[in-house]
């Protein structure tokens, strides 16, 4: 058994500086790559060429292998520079190795000493091995040496980043090594976030069952709770019941009770968001847009977290309570549209009037499609406008096998006392002129 501390043996191990909380002090440009616990550094030679380091944390960096004792047992934090590693033995898996703790052997100078790292803890050994190879091959210390000598030569131009590591300590992506490193880093971060995600997912899955049963209990409780009519003495109860509803909605649990309660927070927030969103599609549609079209636009914009048609309708009905410039309107036919509060029916009426008093329209009437084209609005909207105009007495309808057409309403202008009179002024006269080709 070799005497003396590990330091004394031919300088294999170099003392590693640690902070007061036990973290290694890293050199400039040195980056930690891996951390494992319960690691031993052994010498398998007989007699052993150095004192074994038992039960410590192993930190692999771009420049060194650092070993820090996990318990204060007198051992000194030590490190082996990767530059000193001359050879890493390949790791052969055998039946024997399956029962032992994994171990890596490498050879390091001075003295070509063979060192065995024994991994007694849980950790991704394979990953460590891969990174060990990479860091060793990456030869981060080489670039640094080069850049150090160059900067000392050039003196003043210290701001120029050289080699793999820029002067400010960030890793530069140069050359093949840089590309490989970049790829590696990307994989690492993806891997890590996937690991994290799966941790969360596992935890969630185990809780899911509990959550579902909890939600059910709450639902039952809310459903069986007294209705709001007898709330005079139950204010506290009502308050907490509402709170519970809000909370359940925010967690995403839909309960029939919450849907019925108008003014739930979810719908309120949705309502405001919708009022903002609606502005642009509304403008593009010419001031009026059907609820179904808006449903399409809104959900398309949301991408995920789609809302149901019922949510959309609820959100629109809430607009009455806020001061927003849009409103929901229901036509007699049942069609529901969103329109600007400033939307003027009169303006649309005057445009329709202009349309139907043109000669061709006088003669043959207009269909909803004609109106849609001229007014530049959706055909469904155009039809609603025409129907509104009919109700107001501006238009009247003509139903035939050809379909539904609308004409300027001449009925008011026809004289009951003398059916044959056609006044010179008025649209009736114009209509007569427009249709003069029809008379026999």
């Amino acid at each position, binding site marked *: 058994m070799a005497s003396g501390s590990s330091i004394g043996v031919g300088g294999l191990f170099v003392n590693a500086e640690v902070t007061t909380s036990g973290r290694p002090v890293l050199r400039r440009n040195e980056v930690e790559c891996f951390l494992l616990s319960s690691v031993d550094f052994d010498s398998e030679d007989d007699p052993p060429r150095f004192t074994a380091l038992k039960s410590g944390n192993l930190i692999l960096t771009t420049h060194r292998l650092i070993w820090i004792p996990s318990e204060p047992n007198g051992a000194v934090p030590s490190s082996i520079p990767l530059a000193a590693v001359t050879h890493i033995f390949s790791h052969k898996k055998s039946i024997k190795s399956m029962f032992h703790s994994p171990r890596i052997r490498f050879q390091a100078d001075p003295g070509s000493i063979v060192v065995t790292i024994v991994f007694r803890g849980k950790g991704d050994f394979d990953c460590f091995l891969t990174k060990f190879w990479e860091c060793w091959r990456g030869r981060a210390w080489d670039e640094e040496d080069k850049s150090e000598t160059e900067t000392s030569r050039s003196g003043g131009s210290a701001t120029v980043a050289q080699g793999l590591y820029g002067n400010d300590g960030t890793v530069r992506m140069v050359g093949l090594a840089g590309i490989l490193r970049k790829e590696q880093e990307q994989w690492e971060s993806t891997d890590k976030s996937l690991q994290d995600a799966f941790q969360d997912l596992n935890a969630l899955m185990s809780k899911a069952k509990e959550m579902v049963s909890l939600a059910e209990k709450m639902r039952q409780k809310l459903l069986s709770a007294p209705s709001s009519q007898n709330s005079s003495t139950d204010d506290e109860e009502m308050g907490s019941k509402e709170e519970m509803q809000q909370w359940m909605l925010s967690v995403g649990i839909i309960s029939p009770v919450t849907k019925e309660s108008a003014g739930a927070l979810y719908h309120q927030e949705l309502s405001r968001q919708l009022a903002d969103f609606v502005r642009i599609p509304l403008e593009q549609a010419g001031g009026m847009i059907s609820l179904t079209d808006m449903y399409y636009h809104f959900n398309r914009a949301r991408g995920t977290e789609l809302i149901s048609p019922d949510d959309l309708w609820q959100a629109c009905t809430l607009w009455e309570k806020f001061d927003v410039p849009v409103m929901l309107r229901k036509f007699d036919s049942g069609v529901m549209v969103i329109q600007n509060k400033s939307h003027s029916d009169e303006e649309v009426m005057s445009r329709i009037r202009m349309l139907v008093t043109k000669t061709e329209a006088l003669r043959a*009437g207009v269909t909803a499609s004609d109106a849609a084209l001229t007014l530049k609005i959706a055909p469904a909207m155009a039809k609603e406008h025409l129907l509104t105009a*009919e*109700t107001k*007495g501006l238009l*009247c*309808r*003509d*139903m*035939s096998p050809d379909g539904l*057409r609308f*004409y300027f*309403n*001449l*009925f*008011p202008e*026809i004289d*009951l006392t003398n*059916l*044959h009179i*056609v006044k010179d002024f008025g649209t*009736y006269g114009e*209509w*007569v002129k427009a*249709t003069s080709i*029809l*008379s*026999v």
Partner: protein
Amino acid sequence: MQKLADFKLPQFFNYPPYFTLQPVRDTREKQIQLWKELILDYCKSQKTFLICVEEDFPLFSNSAIDRSLSHEAKETFLSAIVGEGRAEWLDKGHRKCLILWHRIQDWADIILQFVRDNGLEDSVMTVEEIRSGTESLGTELQGIDRTILMRALKLLENKGKLALFKGTSADDEGVKFSV
């Protein structure tokens, strides 16, 4: 101007919406009034007393614009006329409509005038003679619908202006005036 037989049709007869029953109340009201006037004018000029809804009635379609009234529209317009007392449904199924382009009261007055004009104040005539006899030639009474005539006569009977009596057969129903 279009003509139907010798009847001059108004311009709005070529207005397609005229042939579609309008849903809007005010518009429909006007439409009904126009049809009422037109139907009465036409029937008066053509001396048409009866309209059968299920048969073609020349006024109810316009081939020039390829439009005709729906059954519902015909019924609506005729019922409106009935409602104003200018027509009567002869059956519960509303298939036959008697058009009173003169009201019964008006017909009664026409008969009285006819009696006076022809010095028939105390005479006796058969009902058939009133409608097809030589005296009635060229008068409004010529070809008057029997049902209407009977009604007018009954009205006058109630007022004591005449007495109706039955003859040996239906054709011999007679009237004794006491105007």
